[in-house]
């Protein structure tokens, strides 16, 4: 996943879980059935897992722009100085 995708996944996860929890509690309380609440919430957890955990394509809509390899060769990494007496090599 790219960075935007990760942020989206985290937000989706939190919102979906909270929404399912609210719906589950309300349904259970109104219908007077504890089992109903746990069931709805369990379904919600499974659904949220299917939506946010796998690496779906819509999480990769802002791919990272890596530097092109030919461009990278023109800017080599700086060499460390071997001793202080030697002059630093110029390029």
């Amino acid at each position, binding site marked *: 996943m790219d960075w935007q995708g990760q942020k989206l996944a*985290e937000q989706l996860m939190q919102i979906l879980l909270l929404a399912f929890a609210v719906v589950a*509690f309300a349904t*259970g*309380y109104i219908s007077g059935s504890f089992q109903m609440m746990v069931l709805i919430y369990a379904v919600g957890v499974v659904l949220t897992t299917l939506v946010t955990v796998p690496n779906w394509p819509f999480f990769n809509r802002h791919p990272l722009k890596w530097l092109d390899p030919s461009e990278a060769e023109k800017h080599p990494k700086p060499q460390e100085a071997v001793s202080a007496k030697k002059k630093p090599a110029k390029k």
Partner: protein
Amino acid sequence: MHSFGYRANALLTFAMTILALMCTLASLSDNFNSPTPSAHVKVVNINRFQKQPKGNDEVSMQLNISADLQSLFTWNTKQVFVFVAAEYETLKNSLNQISLWDGIIPSKEHAKFWIHTSNKYRFIDQGSNLRGKEFNMTLHWHVMPKTGKMSADKIVMSGYRLPDEYR
């Protein structure tokens, strides 16, 4: 959120925390319930009233126990444990409490009941103080929730008296 395992872990942890919160809320919702239970215990007959060889009095009696505990049940109630106890005072003890009968009510439908039975547990005194003794019958109940704190209460019924002589 960079890997499958990371996301799965975050999701499961968050889901568990929310579940704990929901259970707390469910337990707190029980406070909105104001129960109105009622009960009556009638001593139909004293079957036996003897002094044991060891010197302790023993009573065996027929009881009619009727109760309506339906208002104790909420969506968060697993079962209600109910028991009937006889309470009286002696010179030696300021309070004697003897459980005579108990039962488990698994659901609201079973909470309104009427039962005719002899005492399930033996009514034996510490000594021989029971002749002519006035005692109270108390019906206790413990409400056991699906999640949360157990609560208990009782109804005290007075006006019972044992015979003056052994039978």
